[in-house]
C-alpha cells in the first residue's frame, strides 16, 4: 500500500517558476524513501504542499489513501515534519518546545513530559534542556526539530535535509533510530544531498528534476541498471546514476580562468 501519492501535481510560483511539473510519485508504506534532486528541483515545494504551507495548482496528493484537501488538518497527527526552514519558537527552551509540540499532537501531559525527557537524553540535549533554542548550535536545533517530529510516534516522518549540520555521532544514532522506526512500520521520506547516505540508508529512491519524477526504483536495483546505450555495464553507485540522469538535462558550466 502507498502511504503517500502525488498524481500529476503542478505548482507554479508568482514569478513564473514551475516548481512541480506534473509530478507523480508514490511512497510505499514502511519504506525509507530517498527523495533526491538538484537545488531547486522541487523537493521542498512537494513537501511544503503536504505540510499545508503551499497550495498546489492542480493534480492530487493522497495521504493514507485520502486526498489531503478532504482531511482538513487531521492527517497531521500521523505525520512528523522536519522542514528546510526551522519550525519552532526560538525563544522557547528545548524542553518547552517538545512539551508544546507533544501537546499539539494530542499527547497527555504525562506522556509529553516522559517522552520529552527520553528524547532530550537520546539526542544528548539533557544539559541544554532549559536553554533558549536561539542560543543553541545549528546541529542542536536540527536535533530539536527531529525530536519534535517523532515525539508522537507518527506513521510517516518527512525529513528535509535532516542530517545537514549534525555531527557524525548524532547522525549515526539518528539513522539507527529511523531504521528501527521503519522496521516497526513507520514510513520515512527523506531528502538529502548526501547520496552515499541515501543509497545505504533508503530502500526506495525517487529522482526529481525540474519538477518531474524522472526515476523511481528500489535502491538495490541501482547497481543492476544498464548504463549507456550499449547496455554493457551497470552503474556503480547512486551518485553515478544521479549525475548521468541529471547532467545532460542541466546546463553544463565552467569557469573561464580554469
Amino acid at each position, binding site marked *: 500500500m502507498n502511504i503517500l501519492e502525488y498524481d500529476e501535481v503542478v505548482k507554479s510560483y508568482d514569478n513564473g517558476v514551475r516548481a512541480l511539473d506534473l509530478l507523480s510519485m508514490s511512497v510505499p508504506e514502511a519504506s525509507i524513501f530517498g527523495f533526491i534532486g538538484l537545488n531547486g528541483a522541487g523537493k521542498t515545494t512537494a513537501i511544503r504542499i503536504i505540510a*499545508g504551507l503551499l497550495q498546489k495548482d492542480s493534480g492530487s496528493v493522497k495521504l493514507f489513501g485520502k486526498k489531503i484537501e478532504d482531511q482538513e488538518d487531521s*492527517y497531521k497527527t500521523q505525520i512528523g515534519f522536519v*522542514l528546510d*526552514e526551522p*519550525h519552532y*519558537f526560538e*525563544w522557547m527552551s528545548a524542553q518547552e518546545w517538545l512539551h*508544546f*509540540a507533544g501537546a499539539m499532537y494530542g499527547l497527555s501531559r504525562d506522556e509529553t513530559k516522559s517522552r520529552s525527557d527520553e528524547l532530550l537524553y537520546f539526542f544528548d540535549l539533557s544539559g541544554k534542556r532549559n536553554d533558549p533554542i536561539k542560543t543553541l548550535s545549528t546541529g542542536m536545533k536540527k536535533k530539536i526539530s527531529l525530536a519534535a517530529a517523532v515525539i508522537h510516534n507518527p506513521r510517516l516522518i518527512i525529513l528535509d535535509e535532516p542530517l545537514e549540520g549534525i555531527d557524525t555521532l548524532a547522525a549515526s544514532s539518528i539513522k539507527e533510530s529511523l531504521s528501527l522506526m521503519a522496521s516497526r512500520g513507520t514510513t520515512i521520506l527523506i531528502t538529502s544531498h548526501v547520496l552515499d547516505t541515501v543509497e545505504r540508508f533508503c530502500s526506495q529512491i525517487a529522482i526529481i528534476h525540474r519538477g518531474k519524477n524522472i526515476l523511481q526504483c528500489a535502491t538495490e536495483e541501482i547497481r543492476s541498471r544498464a548504463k549507456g546505450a550499449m547496455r554493457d555495464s551497470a552503474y556503480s553507485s547512486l551518485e553515478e546514476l544521479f549525475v548521468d540522469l541529471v547532467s545532460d538535462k542541466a546546463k553544463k558550466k565552467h569557469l573561464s580562468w580554469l
Partner: protein
Amino acid sequence: MIRGFYETADYGDLLIFRAEFKQFFLSPKCLHFIPLMMAGAVLTAWVYPVASPFVPVVIVVFSGLEPQFNNIFYSTPGELETLSVLPVSWRRVVLAKNCATLLLVLLMFILCSMALLYFSPDTVSWRYTSDALLYLPTVLFPALHIGNMRSIQNPRRRAGMTSTDLFEALWMILTIGALSAPYFIMTGLFEVPLLCALYGVGMAIAWYRYSPARTASLIAEERVRICQAY
C-alpha cells in the same frame, strides 16, 4: 463562560496561553511601553480636567498591546507557519491567544494606571476608577474581534519599531475611539451606567461564541495564501 473554557481546556490550550503570555515579556515588544509611558505621563499631566485621567492609560495600554490584538498569528516570527505544520485546532488557538491578551490588558492596565496616575494633578476619585472599569469591557471584546479579523487581512511577519507598526498603533487608537461611542451614549446620553455593564457582558458572550470560530474558519481558508506570500 470562563469556567466553561477552563473545564474543556486541555494541556495544549494552556501551553498556547502560556506561550502567548510569556513571549510578550521576552520579546522587544514590551519595550514599546517605555516611550509610550513617557508620552502617557505628559498626557496625564496635560489632559486633566478635560477628561478622565484614565484616558492616557487606555491610549498607552491599547497602543502598546496593538500587536497582541491585530497580529495574533505572528506574535513571534514564523509562528503561523510553525502552527500550520502541527495539527492544531485554530479555534482553540485563537481563544487561548485572546484570553492571554485579555490577561495582558488587565495586567498592563493596572501597572500603567499605577504609574501614570501618579502624574495626575489631582486625586483620582473612585468615580473615575469605576467608570474606567465599566468602560473597559465595552471596548475590549469588540477590539479582540476586530483584531482577529485584521490579523488575517493584514498580517505582519515581524512587528517592531517600524512606520507600519506606528500606523497600526494609531489605527488601534482610532478604533478604540470609535468603539467607545456606545459607552459615551449610555453614560452621557442615557445616563444609565448599568447599561455599560450589560453591554460589556453581551460583547463578551458575543466574542466567545462567534469570534474564535469565525477567525478559525477564515484562517483555515487564508492560511496557505499568507504562508505562500513568505
